[in-house]
């Protein structure tokens, strides 16, 4: 009973630490993005709230929390209220299976630095990201506005298309590691990261995951200049904030997954595991911000053609080649 209780407390502490870190970094990622995007465009970025604008995330969240939560008259109320939570929740849940360090020993008992090491962790991630579509699609539909509906439809189409190439791009990784568990995948990369042997998979996964998180150049669901704000046009206050948190947590999860599948997870010299994972996550996030500062938005037909005619066949060919190598 005591052992169970200790285990339970450790689990709660782990969840609290991970959740706190994720949300804290999400808030500061917004600051980093605005600052860096500003410099990429030869601007300064936020610099009013605190030194270098460091208090900007706090000011933003205070603003979001105190703003009126407007629910328009013609919306489908329940779905409208729940949709942002779906987006934020699925993004946060994906992190539950990401290992962030070697087992540590505390008081004679090993504590794995992962919240849940299930043997189908990779499929769990797919499941969560495919459920994230509902937040976007239903949020757009329930708003009962033409911009939101168009954004929701675009989001649904885009996300189910690119989920396919994400799945296919990870098949070679599973073939090499021989397991769906992220802990095993990271352990298999102790000697060399998979990006060295699977560069094609890496690129396909990076592009598709970027499309999955609806970032520029794949931000068609929220295309500002044609759809207002797309699926979250009608949202205000903290419900809009939840969509926002979902997006930035998604960036971190994407960074963590990229690190786990291709960059060797928490493996790295000198520094402890969680620090390495954080460094890799941040590196991916910075590259994504750089991409956002450079590339324009794709057109809808380009997006679909790119996903179905280039990424999916490339991923399939990559699977066949990897299979041949694994057999030999």
């Amino acid at each position, binding site marked *: 009973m005591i052992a169970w209780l200790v285990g339970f407390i450790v689990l709660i502490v782990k969840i609290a630490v991970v959740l706190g870190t994720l949300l804290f970094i999400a808030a500061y990622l917004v600051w980093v993005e605005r600052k860096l995007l500003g410099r990429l465009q030869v601007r300064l970025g936020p610099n009013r709230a605190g030194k270098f604008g460091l208090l900007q995330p706090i000011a933003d969240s205070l603003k979001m929390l105190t703003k009126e939560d407007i629910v328009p008259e013609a919306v489908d109320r329940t779905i409208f209220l729940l949709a942002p939570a779906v987006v934020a929740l699925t993004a946060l849940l994906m992190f539950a299976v990401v290992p962030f360090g070697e087992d540590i020993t505390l008081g004679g008992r090993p504590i794995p630095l992962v919240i849940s090491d299930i043997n189908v962790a990779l499929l769990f991630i797919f499941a969560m990201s495919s459920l994230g579509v509902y937040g976007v699609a239903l949020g757009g539909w329930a708003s009962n506005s033409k911009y939101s509906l168009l954004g929701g439809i675009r989001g649904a189409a885009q996300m189910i298309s690119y989920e396919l190439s994400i799945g296919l791009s990870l098949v070679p990784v599973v073939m090499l590691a021989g397991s769906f568990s992220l802990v095993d995948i990271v352990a298999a990369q102790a000697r060399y990261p998979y990006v060295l042997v699977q560069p094609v998979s890496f690129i396909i996964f990076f592009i598709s995951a970027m499309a999955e998180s609806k970032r520029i150049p794949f931000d068609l669901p929220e295309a500002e200049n044609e759809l207002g704000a797309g699926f979250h046009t009608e949202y205000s206050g903290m419900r809009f904030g939840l969509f926002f948190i979902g997006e930035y947590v998604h960036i971190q999860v994407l960074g963590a997954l990229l690190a786990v599948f291709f960059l060797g997870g928490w493996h790295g010299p000198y520094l402890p595991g969680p620090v390495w994972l954080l460094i890799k996550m941040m590196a991916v996030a910075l590259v994504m911000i*750089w991409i956002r500062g450079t590339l324009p938005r794709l057109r809808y037909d380009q997006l679909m053609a790119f996903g179905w005619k280039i990424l999916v066949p490339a991923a399939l060919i990559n699977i066949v080649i990897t299979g041949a190598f694994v057999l030999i």
Partner: protein
Amino acid sequence: MSDPKQTSWLGDILGSVSAMAGGFSTTFKHLFRKPITEEYPEYKRPLPERSRARIILTRDPDGDERCVACYLCSAACPVSCISMQSTEREDGRRYAAWFRINFGRCIYCGLCEEACPTSAIQLTPDFENCRRDILTMVFEKEDLLVDHGGKDKTYNFYRYAGVVSGKGGKGEHVKEKKAVDVKTNLP
């Protein structure tokens, strides 16, 4: 590589990759450039003299107020934020008994300035005119009147007007022909 279609396909890919690389290197270089942002409250950019912001009522070179209360600015104003009451001095010179601009409504379009025949009403570059209380945005004549000629330093309406006032009698104004003596002009 002998197949022409193959080379063009490859060329397409190489071309788009190099184009992307060009874009990324440009943004990367921008990262190390000095930002061109002008930080407003610390640095106030000198605005052009003719930029349109707070409205003033100017005086002529002799120090009299230029406004003759003709109501043209009030009529031209698309948001009807100018109101006044005209009256006349003993020497025949017209002026506004009171003159009021509601800056809460003003859109700073400058149509009043264009309509004004005496260059009295003018817009200035001073745009820092925010108030917490909207009622303090209503400016009376004493708030509007300034001690200079604004953008038009020399013009004095009554020197040209041909109206008898303190600036001279009949025929004594600039570009005015001598007054005709009707008694000597008989056929």
